[in-house]
């Protein structure tokens, strides 16, 4: 029976490393996560439903998902331009720009949050020029979208870069020789090949934005019904010692990120299959 579970190998350490991996994984990840499911099971269906459909909670979902969707879309467009430029063109400062794309990963979210707030507030470097036009960024949904765009950017760029690098120039040449102009080559030849990577990057940026907290709380102003994101609502429920309420909202968010993760895996599986089918 043991033989069937594991193929024989001369290398030592399987039992020890697998045992340790499973123990550590269970203690750090699986046990705490299961607490979330058990804790929300303590709520009756009616209680759970009234918590997650409370108008203030629904407003926060709408804001969180809406702003995240817009931010991920902005990132898909500009991230594509950035990835394309970094992969295809050579210009002074390219390597520096390439390295700095990861800044949102490396910069602690609280630092990003206060920096963005400082720049886009009424008297900030950029905010002061937007103010006369009646555009308010800090403490509005626009500011939230901006912060979510900031933290999502590397996901799109870093997923697209390898896909663009792997692009076969000969296919583009063939398209050109057959009479396609650059725009047609782009929309008919390039886009279909890199679409799975683009969608994966988009989904990753979207998923990250939904759960984001640190970079948003400073710029959002946290007004209930208007600029209160779901993560913050969980924290304020906890501060009121409403653990059950916090758990219910958290469960909804957790399940939605699992759905997104499954979608990303499906996309990658689809892209992998298509790739193998072509070669």
């Amino acid at each position: 029976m043991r033989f069937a579970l594991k193929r024989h190998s001369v290398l030592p350490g399987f039992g020890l490393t697998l045992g340790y991996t499973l123990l550590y994984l269970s203690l750090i990840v699986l046990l705490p996560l299961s607490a979330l499911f058990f804790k929300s099971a303590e709520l009756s269906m009616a209680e759970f439903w009234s918590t997650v459909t409370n108008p203030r909670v629904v407003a926060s979902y709408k804001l969180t998902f809406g702003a995240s969707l817009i931010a991920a879309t902005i990132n898909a467009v500009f991230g594509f331009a950035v990835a394309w430029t970094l992969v295809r063109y050579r210009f002074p400062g390219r390597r520096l720009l390439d390295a700095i794309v990861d800044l949102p990963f490396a910069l602690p979210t609280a630092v990003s949050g206060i920096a963005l707030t400082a720049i886009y507030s009424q008297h900030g470097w950029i905010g002061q020029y937007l103010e006369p036009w009646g555009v308010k960024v800090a403490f509005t949904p626009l500011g939230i979208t901006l912060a979510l765009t900031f933290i999502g950017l590397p996901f799109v760029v870093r997923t697209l870069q390898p896909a663009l690098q792997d692009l076969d120039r000969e296919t583009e040449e063939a398209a050109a020789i057959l009479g396609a102009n650059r725009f047609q080559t782009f929309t008919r030849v390039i886009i279909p090949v890199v679409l799975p990577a683009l969608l994966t990057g988009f989904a990753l940026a979207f998923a990250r934005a939904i759960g984001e907290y640190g970079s948003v709380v400073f710029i959002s102003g946290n007004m209930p019904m208007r600029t209160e994101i779901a993560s913050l609502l969980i924290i304020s429920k906890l501060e009121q010692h409403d653990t059950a309420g916090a758990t219910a909202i958290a469960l909804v968010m957790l399940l939605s990120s699992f759905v997104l993760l499954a979608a990303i895996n499906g996309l990658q599986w689809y892209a992998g299959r298509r790739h193998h089918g072509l070669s």
Partner: protein
Amino acid sequence: MGTASLSHEASADGATAFRVTRVVTDERPWARWLLIGVTVTFLSLFLVVPLAAVFAEAFRKGLGAYLASFRDPNALAAIRLTLLTAAIAVPANLVFGVAAAWCIAKFEFRGKSLLISLIDIPFAVSPVVSGLIYMLLFGMQGWFGPWLAERGIQVIFAVPGIVLATIFVTFPFVARELIPLMQEQGTEEEQAAVSLGASGWQTFRRVTLPNIKWALLYGVILSNARAMGEFGAVSVVSGHIRGKTNTMPLHVEILYNEYNFVAAFAVASLLALLALATLVLKTLVEWQMQRQVTEALELREET
């Protein structure tokens, strides 16, 4: 074909890139410059300006005010706690990452792909929820909270909770770097070492470790940056007790909410320096890894 190979050479060599006439797979110059312009503007506006703002705000009242921010004992306590947390969380996940990568990459067993997916879970859990799940275990209304409290052990609103939440959010980093690399490297070298009589530990140290050292370092750099900078998860379990359970990012928040902007940005500037150091180290390690790959390819071609 002639034009195509010309364009290829040109794009590999930055100096001659713009002297070459347009070939069919290049955009027109105006489109190219427009795209470069958009990229430079977008990245400067979105990434460089916020970074510059951190330092500008920190030095707004001069160097003296900046340095004075670090004489605050609570700021020093926050720095110490952040260092302590990273010093526990990063090695813990390093050991786990190596163990997980060893059993996953070097052996074939059932349920492997499920195990890989489970290791990735913490990346899918939002920071606040990551903190919340430890509240559910160790908080006063949680499973083990009351039992631990009777014995005088406090996890939530204390250092152990902060360390646990940090371990959770940095959990996959090292494993994720090592697993694909070690799978690609296969087991031939280790099998040779074992058949020549090396012990398991010797095999790992002399054969596997030199092959994975850069990826290992890469994972450590990334998880350290996240460990020191984590905000959401730590915020839930910390309790924000000044001088005791505030990490640097939490201390930044408190100072900021008190309108003590210079001090907030001063502490934030240290975290920004950490981020810059992370980017530099990460890029250097990436170059090393690329060199290793090219060298391996050249070696393969020679033989």
